[in-house]
């Protein structure tokens, strides 16, 4: 079952969920409407013909005017994988959580919030994961400027690179 058939099944199961299929130049992925991400994910996991029970990764991208969450899910029974993207506007980056559908998303979403600043509505414990709790800013964004100090420690280099 390739990506077209997965998309067809999803169109039947979750009307309005899929916006389009994207192919080259990007590896094939489904663009999902951010408002319907939970329905799409639950359908992907529970539908017996799809059975995507393993979330390989959940990552965040900075795509200019929008921020994007990339999902890649794997079906161990059918041995296939599919990728999805959901875009949110940069000035209001809020999307529903999928951490109750795939528990591994719990930490992936925390990391995405920490480094890119996307908020996951409904996440049980959304706080910074990798950076200290009092860090300001979201470093993976393209407009991030490295801080010169952190608390009372100097963060500059004494040498040229």
């Amino acid at each position: 079952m390739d990506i077209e058939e997965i998309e067809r099944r999803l169109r039947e199961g979750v009307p309005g969920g899929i916006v389009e299929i994207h192919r080259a130049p990007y590896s094939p992925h489904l663009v999902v409407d951010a408002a319907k991400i939970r329905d799409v994910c639950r359908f992907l996991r529970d539908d017996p013909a799809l059975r995507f029970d393993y979330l390989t990764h959940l990552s965040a991208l900075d795509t200019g005017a929008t921020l994007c969450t990339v999902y890649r899910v794997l079906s161990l029974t059918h041995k296939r994988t599919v990728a999805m993207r959901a875009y949110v506007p940069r000035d209001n980056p809020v999307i529903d959580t999928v951490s109750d559908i795939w528990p591994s998303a719990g930490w992936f979403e925390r990391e995405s919030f920490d480094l890119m600043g996307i908020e996951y509505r409904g996440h049980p414990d959304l706080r910074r994961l990798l950076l200290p709790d009092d860090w300001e800013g979201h470093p993976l964004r393209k407009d991030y400027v490295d801080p010169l100090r952190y608390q009372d420690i100097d963060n500059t280099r004494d040498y040229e690179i």
Partner: protein
Amino acid sequence: MNFTDMREINLHQSLPDGLLVTNVDKLLAWGRLSSLWYLLFGLACCAIELMQTGGPRADLDRFGAVPRATPRQADLMIVAGTVTLKMAKRVKRLYEQMPEPKYVISMGSCANSGGLFAYAYSVLKGIDKVIPVDIYVPGCPPRPEALTEALLEIQKKIQNEKYLGRGPVAAGAKE
């Protein structure tokens, strides 16, 4: 018999009469340099090389250096690996917990100056921004032989230190 380098003493051959004339500083220094207990402070990749240096081939134990897990029982801190800003406060606290006299070896490029993570936003560019360092060991990671040489340099430094005659020491100051 006078010895300039206390490490050359071989008790059986050098002291046939069982008499040694030296000053107490040198005797104490001999004791201290032969039993430098280091704090097991491996943070990143250099920790694996530190582990291998304490391992069977390049053995640190033959110099009297054994690893201790708690800073209260250690007098040498080998900062092995990248120090992030989140970890920097803890490094300083561990250093302050060590009793005097204490020494620090900064092992590897990351501890010396940030290393190849100089571009990072979250890495401390050199451990000497928070604690005083005695010996810097270059390398990424340094070979066990390089770390062993650093230990021998610390031993040389201890041997030439005046410990008893140094006068009152302010709290937290380093000679």
